[in-house]
């Protein structure tokens, strides 16, 4: 053991997988918000996927809970430079939700209660890489973290994991969302440090 301790908790640094460039580890769960927290009663909550033809696929809260549920443990990376390891979520895979959706679209725009939007390639919502998450760390997802349900797309910067998600619009053209129209990167891969346009 050297003179300089690598830290006060957890495994030695050498055993940890690397963080994306420019990120630091945090133990708490910072709350970031671009506006007031919407209050969404579960009896009126809905999730809707709208295809490029306008066809709508809707789920109520009870219908969403009746779908196959998955538990995932993932690292998350915020563009404001904090990363958090081994976060525990439960929710419905986008693979399940997209299964019966007839679409030839390549692009998705997630939209939220409260008006937030963020865009992703539709391919990034498939392949067991994206969920509508309603449970965090064993309990209902708190409203300040996006409850009743948020998008969870942990392989991209966390602004893509839209809080208070209400639906996804599929399209044949890419439509930048809330932060993407204000300078942030269209795709947002933390491992390539795609923070801002042109990165």
């Amino acid at each position, binding site marked *: 053991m050297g003179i300089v301790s690598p830290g006060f908790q957890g495994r030695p640094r050498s055993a940890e997988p690397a963080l994306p460039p420019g990120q630091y580890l945090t133990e708490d769960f910072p709350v970031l918000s671009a506006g007031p927290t919407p209050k969404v009663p579960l009896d009126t909550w809905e999730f809707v996927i709208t295809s490029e033809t306008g066809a709508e696929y809707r789920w109520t809260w009870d219908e969403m809970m009746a779908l196959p549920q998955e538990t995932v443990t993932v690292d998350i990376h915020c563009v404001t430079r904090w990363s958090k390891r081994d976060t525990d979520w439960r929710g419905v895979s986008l693979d399940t939700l997209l299964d019966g959706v007839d679409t030839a679209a390549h692009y998705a725009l997630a939209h939220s209660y409260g008006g937030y939007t963020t865009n992703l390639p539709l391919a990034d919502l498939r392949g067991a890489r994206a969920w509508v998450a309603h449970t965090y760390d064993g309990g209902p997802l708190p409203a300040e973290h996006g409850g009743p349900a948020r998008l969870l797309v942990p392989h991209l910067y966390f602004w893509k994991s839209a809080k208070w998600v209400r639906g996804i619009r599929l399209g044949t053209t890419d439509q930048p969302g809330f*932060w993407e129209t*204000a300078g*942030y990167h269209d795709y947002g891969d933390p491992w390539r440090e795609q923070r801002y346009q042109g990165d």
Partner: protein
Amino acid sequence: MTEMSYLDGNMLDGPLRELFAVDLSTATGRCDNCGMAGPVAALQVWSHAPGLVARCPVCTEVMLRLVRAPDRAWLDLRGTTFLQVPMPLDQPHPRPL
């Protein structure tokens, strides 16, 4: 007869430099969503976010967004119909051409 024409954006440099040098917290902004006109200082600013998001105190729609990268900044005013900026009377100002 001389046809009316336009100038390139370089001519905005001087006039806009005059504007952007002022303290905008003393300016008045009009919300493009609800029409509220009030001081920029009264906007509700959400700063625990990837950028600054200023919302109308009446309807809470976004009026201004400011994102700062190390080498660049983005200012989005699409939610603001106008900014009315107080100007000193004794300062020479450009007349309409």
